[in-house]
């Protein structure tokens, strides 16, 4: 398991959150959603999203399915699983306290 505060964990958390709020999405949709929501502050190299998606699929946090998208193109849609929801709840709490801690240090040091 990666370092719980690494960039990889952050990316996982972002993906899970987006899928939780917006429902099933394809990879491109997830990438643009993260960019839009973070107001382009978090611009991940888009390619690195896919290994993360496949790893989370492997872990059972998300499931994937080929479906025809709005433009009739075939796209792989990812959806959050029950295990993913649980993971999201745990990780977002942990991440919030971690981020709050970092922010406190930055402010008061």
């Amino acid at each position, binding site marked *: 398991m990666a370092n719980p505060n690494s960039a990889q964990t952050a990316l996982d958390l972002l993906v899970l959150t987006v899928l939780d709020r917006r429902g099933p999405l394809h990879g491109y949709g997830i990438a643009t959603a993260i960019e839009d929501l973070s107001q382009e502050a978090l611009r991940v190299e888009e390619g690195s999203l896919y290994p993360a998606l496949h790893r989370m699929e492997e872990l059972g946090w998300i499931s994937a399915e080929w479906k025809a998208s709005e433009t009739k*193109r075939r796209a792989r849609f990812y959806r959050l699983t029950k295990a993913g929801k649980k993971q999201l709840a745990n990780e977002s709490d942990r991440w919030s306290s971690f981020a709050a801690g970092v922010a406190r240090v930055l402010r008061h040091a």
Partner: protein
Amino acid sequence: MSWLSRLKNALNSRRLDDDLSDEIRDHLERRTDALRKQGLDPDEARHKAQARFGNATLLREQSRGLRLWTGLEGTLQDIRYSWRGMCKAPGFALTVVLSLALAIGANTAIYSIVDAAILRPLPVGDPGRLFRLSFPSVSDPGSLAESESDWFSYPEYLQFTAAAAPVARLALFSSPGRAETHELTARAPIEKINRAYVSGGAFEMLGIQPAAGRLFSTTEDRIPQDRAVAVLSYDYWRRRFGQDPAVVGRSIAINEKAVEIIGVAREGFWSLENWSTSGCPERCTTHER
């Protein structure tokens, strides 16, 4: 993803590759479209989309590694490779396979014989003290084993038994033969069995215990016989009668003659020789041999 789906992916790695390529292409197309809508010309949009995507080949390798066991895939590739090699030279491959099959088969056969004949003890009480009597053929005096005979007449047997009396016990065994048997009801199906005749004291001499009922005793040698009796082999009892102990006392027909089943020999005993396991030894009924 379970090991099963990984195995499926390994068996079908081309489909997995296609899936990954499709997914990447889909992403790039969508990004290109979006950039064009912002006013970029097609070439520029495509380049920018690729730049934003990053190293597609590296990502493909990473995802492949996640979704299948590369080791397993390697093994399957080896198998496919050797299969193609064999298809290229089918004559040679067939020769090799046949040679191996013959060699393995011959080894197995020889071992089976050695196992049965030498390694496994005879299924009798005291195999070390068991002897088989034979005599040189009279018509060919002085010659060795090949022309030996182990056929004895019943009077000979009686004389030898008396002569050997306190030191050794003798028993007669017929060579096994085929017989037809059926239940004593009308139109019962007929079954072919192997049976052999033995003298009354044969089981006692060999130290064989009954699995059901009783085995022959010397009283069965009485002549004239008042009734024909038979002992079943354990295998036949199990196969034909489902190990039913109630068969003891029942009569069946063997070669159209009613024969009473008096018992079943213990498991593992069928004969001193390797005749079929469905042996049905009847008592010694003839004066010959």
